[in-house]
């Protein structure tokens, strides 16, 4: 018997998180929570997921000792190679997990939001592979910026639905997916792409992404016999960061969350110059959770800005908001130029082209090597092929 009411404290990280959704979505969200709670300890579920992560996604991913970068920075730098996951980013860790939850719930259709298209692609992959109808909501602006990913999704049988409401980017794609779900929850599962949204999504996405940190912990012990002094990861919603941070929360490891500094700390009337909700945001409710958000003094959500579409989001996962407030996670910013430096230098030094999102963490490390300590891991959450057009256009400006 599913409980029909709940204690709000059970859905929160400190004061952050919760379930701020219209009543029509409350039963479907609670159904997901109940299913996940049941499955997360199921050996049969775990075996299915581990099998797919290994044979289909290509896990474990290497922890690579970046010799040239280490020499340049005068300290040991390891890269967690999530860019090598099938699909080109860490996103598949989560979509495989949630798609298996959806399957066991008897759902036949997946909906998802996407910004840069990476989560949409990862959802299209599991849709094709596990047999779901897939519809992906994507802002009209993002569709123009990421044509290749749109085509990849369509090749794999997903339908991409252009979102023309609001700012026509990721935050509006999420709104539109919620509106769809409010009418289709009988047969549809909302496959949320980051560690944000109403409970249980922040916890569930973190858990599915924690495979990154679990592997890294084992690998670094094997490679170096000890834990790193710090870990740096980029943060948009925060799924790759929470994924690598979570298994290290109780260890003496500095956790650095690098947000999109964009053009700087400022804002105009409707648009922030960055995507740094931890660094520049204030408390508020967005997409079902109380968290740190970019907003005007009246509570209207600002459009965010970053060269990296995957960091271009005016909110952040509630657990990161909580860990930052507690001082456990250190929020930092890398602006567009710093990210581009990371993009270029990792390409030329190591022969690895990182996603523009991951390049924020690399760029921050290049700029502040002393903060990393003697040994650090940088999470390379995705590969940069999707960003070549963006970088070429930016440099021609």
């Amino acid at each position, binding site marked *: 018997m599913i409980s*029909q*009411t*709940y*204690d*709000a404290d059970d*859905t929160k990280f400190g004061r952050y998180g*919760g*379930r*701020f*959704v*219209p*009543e*029509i979505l*409350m*039963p*479907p969200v609670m159904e997901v929570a109940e299913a996940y709670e049941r499955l997360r300890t199921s050996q049969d579920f775990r075996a299915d997921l581990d099998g797919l992560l290994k044979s289909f996604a290509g896990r474990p991913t290497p922890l690579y000792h970046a010799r040239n970068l280490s020499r340049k920075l005068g300290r040991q730098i390891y890269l967690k190679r999530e860019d090598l996951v099938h699909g080109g980013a860490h996103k598949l860790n989560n979509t495989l997990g949630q798609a298996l939850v959806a399957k066991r719930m008897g759902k036949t259709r997946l909906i998802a939001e996407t910004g840069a298209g990476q989560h949409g692609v990862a959802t299209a992959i599991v849709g094709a592979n596990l047999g779901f109808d897939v519809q992906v909501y994507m802002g009209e602006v993002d569709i123009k910026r990421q044509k290749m990913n749109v085509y990849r999704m369509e090749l794999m049988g997903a339908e991409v639905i252009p979102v023309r*409401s*609001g700012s026509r980017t990721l*935050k*509006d794609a999420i*709104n539109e997916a*919620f*509106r769809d779900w*409010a*009418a*289709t*929850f009988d047969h549809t599962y909302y496959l949320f792409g980051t560690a944000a949204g109403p409970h249980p999504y922040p916890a569930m996405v973190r858990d599915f992404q924690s495979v990154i940190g679990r592997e890294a912990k084992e690998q670094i012990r094997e490679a170096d016999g000890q834990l790193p002094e710090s870990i740096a990861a980029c943060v948009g919603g925060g799924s790759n960061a929470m994924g690598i941070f979570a298994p290290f929360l109780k260890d003496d490891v500095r956790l650095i969350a690098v947000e999109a500094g964009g053009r700087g700390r400022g804002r105009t009337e409707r648009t922030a110059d960055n995507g740094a909700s931890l660094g520049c945001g204030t*408390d*508020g*409710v*967005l*997409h*079902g959770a*109380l968290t740190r*958000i970019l*907003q005007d*003094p*009246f*509570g*209207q*959500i600002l459009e965010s800005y970053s060269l990296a579409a995957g960091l271009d989001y005016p909110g952040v996962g509630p657990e990161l908001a909580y860990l930052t407030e507690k001082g456990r996670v250190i929020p930092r910013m890398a602006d567009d130029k710093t990210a581009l430096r990371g993009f270029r230098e990792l390409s030329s030094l190591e022969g690895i082209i990182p996603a523009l999102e991951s390049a924020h963490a690399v760029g921050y490390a290049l700029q502040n090597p002393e903060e990393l300590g003697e040994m650090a891991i940088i999470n390379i959450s995705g590969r940069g092929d999707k960003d070549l057009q963006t970088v070429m256009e930016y440099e021609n400006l």
Partner: protein
Amino acid sequence: MKKPLLIVYICAGDPTPEATPDLVRRLARAGADIIELGLPHSDPVADGPTIQAAAQRAIAAGMNTDIYFKAAAEADVDIPKVFMGYYNMIYARGLERFVRDCASSGITGMIVPDLPPEEAGPLQEASRSAGVDLIFLAAPNTPQERLEMIRAQTSGFLYLVARAGVTGARSDILQGTRDFIARVPQGVPRAVGFGISTPKQAAEVIRAGADAAIVGSACVDLIARGEIEQLMQLVREMKEAITEAEKDKNPIVC
């Protein structure tokens, strides 16, 4: 108040902040029993395209929370005015200040579609001490035990979401809506909204047992087209239709 009631939603600031007080007065004269005055939000997740567009127009025209309360106060009507808006707008102003502003501008109730009772403790406390009702919503898929909890928590009335999905005009009232109204426990006035756009539909929900019919998107649509006379005509016809429907509710059997 004498039942059945007609509740009319408009988005404050659409088409302009200046137009809102007069619109409220005219709607009251045309037969609205309660005005639901929407505060536009950038991310109205419970709303369909019609009200989303209205919110965008209003924000572009300069509507904000300060102006909202001024407009509400200026709209001096004898019927109750109720706030409708998203929780972040309340949170950003501060809960206590927000409910104080409601009370001082003649707003007697609040509908916050993205605030479930589980999260509503602090706002409930603030609104109670200011004497403002906090009105909760229930949906057709709300299970019975939860429905009882929501009914116990709501004050003023209970807002029944007629069907799955978001706000917006629909051409039919489903059997599911009738069943939903029937399973709501007695003891609190039941207002039905989402998808009611014609006098016939409004009459149907009243016949099905509702105490009030809520019309929103249909009105917002007419405002968007500048058809204010037609809006007043629609409100008059709706009021007539539900008054007639109320008589059918308890027919005298000969």
